[in-house]
């Protein structure tokens, strides 16, 4: 019943550049378009915000627990009388920077591991997949906490701690894509014509394996932001840098007096991650060839 041959296939596609076609599909997803706009705004705030609103988030500028909108502080002040808006604006930088860097790192590790495993198969695949399983067994947050606790809470170390536990999903996706694509005719043809393995892997197969990896990478940025928020909520963060999770963590004892000091940074995280995941959904629709054929 699912594929009814009676229903005509209309909209015969006209050949166009794949990127243009993907953008066309993306634009049709209204939620993803709105999310893209929101996300762009957040990124702009992260880049330019600190110049437009140059208040230091560590300065005690006013009486503690001044509610939002009162006394001229749009989002109020925290338990030490620090400006919450300044913390949100400066925190955006850390969250997005770490989110991007950690996602980049895990994509790099994941693609390398997955590509080698899927391309060479045999014992290489066996060993690499066992290593992947090993990393899946370690409880991610605890492992990152241990790394940060043992080796120091600098931003690069936090990024490393997040990246090193997050790459397994990318590795699995890359591997299964490689396993699928390496059997296709154009790869066999390319192999038969004597193309070198490295070129075969990265010039022939990888570009065709990219769509699901890109979608996964987008989602990873979101989960890395959540991850960083969790770590900094627990206090495992660079004490000289303000981040959204850290604001929640440091204010949580005062939730009865000033719930907004926790609610507002949480909304910032929530909206950012939600926007990223909706954009990821849109990318999925746009890049998934199976959907496009429908």
């Amino acid at each position, binding site marked *: 019943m699912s594929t009814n041959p009676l229903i005509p296939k209309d909209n015969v596609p006209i050949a166009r550049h794949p990127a243009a076609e993907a953008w066309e599909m993306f634009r049709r997803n209204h939620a993803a378009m709105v999310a893209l706009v929101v996300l762009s705004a957040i990124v702009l705030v992260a880049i330019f915000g600190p110049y437009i609103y140059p208040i230091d988030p560590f300065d005690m500028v006013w009486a503690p627990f001044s509610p939002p909108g009162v006394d001229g502080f749009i989002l109020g002040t925290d338990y030490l009388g620090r400006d919450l808006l300044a913390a949100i604006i400066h925190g955006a930088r850390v969250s997005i920077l770490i989110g991007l860097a950690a996602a980049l790192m895990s994509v790099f590790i994941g693609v390398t591991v997955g590509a080698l495993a899927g391309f060479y198969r045999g014992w290489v695949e066996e060993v690499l997949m066992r290593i992947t399983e090993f990393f899946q067994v*370690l409880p991610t947050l605890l492992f990152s906490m241990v790394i940060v606790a043992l080796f120091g809470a600098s931003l690069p170390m936090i990024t490393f701690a997040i990246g090193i536990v997050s790459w397994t999903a990318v590795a699995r996706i890359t591997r299964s894509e490689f396993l699928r694509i390496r059997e296709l005719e154009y790869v066999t043809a390319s192999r038969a014509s004597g193309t070198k393995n490295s070129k075969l892997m990265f010039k022939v197969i990888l570009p065709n394996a990219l769509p699901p990896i890109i979608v996964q990478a987008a989602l990873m940025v979101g989960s890395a932001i959540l991850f960083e928020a969790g770590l900094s909520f627990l206090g495992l963060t660079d004490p000289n840098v303000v981040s959204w999770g850290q604001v929640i963590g440091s204010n949580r004892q005062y939730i009865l007096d000033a719930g907004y000091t926790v609610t507002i940074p949480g909304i910032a995280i929530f909206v950012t991650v939600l926007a990223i995941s909706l954009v990821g959904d849109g990318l999925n629709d746009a890049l998934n060839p199976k959907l496009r054929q429908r």
Partner: protein
Amino acid sequence: MASLQSLMMRILYAAILLIAVLVLNFSMMHMAPGDVADTISQSMGGADQELLDQIRADYGLDQPFLVQMGRYIGNVLQFDLGYSFFYNKPVTELILQRLPATLLLVFVAQILALFIGVILGVISARKPNGIASHFVTILALFGYSAPVFWTGILLLIGFSLKIQLFPVAGMRDVTIEGGFWVHFIDVARHMVLPVITLGSIFLALYSRLSRATMMEVLGSDYVRTAKAKGLTERQVVYKHALKNSLSPVITLAGLQFSAVISGAVLVEAVFSWPGLGTLAFQSIIARDTPTILGILFFSALVVIVGNLLTDLALRLVDPRVRSKG
């Protein structure tokens, strides 16, 4: 027989994974700046070099790396995870004290999320435009995007502080006296918010997958056969369709144990739940390395056991897995 053999292989493989965790544990401890001798000397208020060397010799820290590692692994296999100088207790004892609370939280949250998730999935698959289906969609967005500790704090503000429906923190009220059921209800009341906080993320995951697989299964040929047999709607959905839609959800749940434990760490921190997560948090602040690594080991153990249980569950549900092993 083949199935029993494959099960033994899995258990063996699980053991190898655990040893690997120990190797990683020890290497990290070795690579990290500062060692047990430093910790002891700090807790004594400082020590001279001679004393430090003495301590290092006592604890075998002057031995080669591999010897030390071998001894560490040997000790762990005898359930000796070292000594916590911060708590003045053997790490194993410390962890076994806290483990039950975490297991309770993790398993109750997982099982409830799985159970409710599958039911929600079934209901919303049968009515793709119904309330349940919209709820699943919204829950999926929220569950993925909201930081779990933030959800926890919001629930805490709402249901423990504003409306004082549930206790603010901990697992039990020590002032309460009474029989088993009094304590049972007391713990249950303490559990409500942590379980909702932790479970909602996974509920989102399971209900969405369950809806998707159930919709696929409801359109399958064998469901049509079941209808053509003249079975009731209930038999068709709950006997023929449900059992087939379970395997992917159980597989996903099995992959989540590591994530559930990570979530539990944060949830425990929010609700001061006296489990491994809180212990981990406290020992990290106290830089109590043996305890931290012990917790990492035990939580990996929980994940591995969880994976084995998932395997068993899959065997129960799907005869094809049973025969292939």
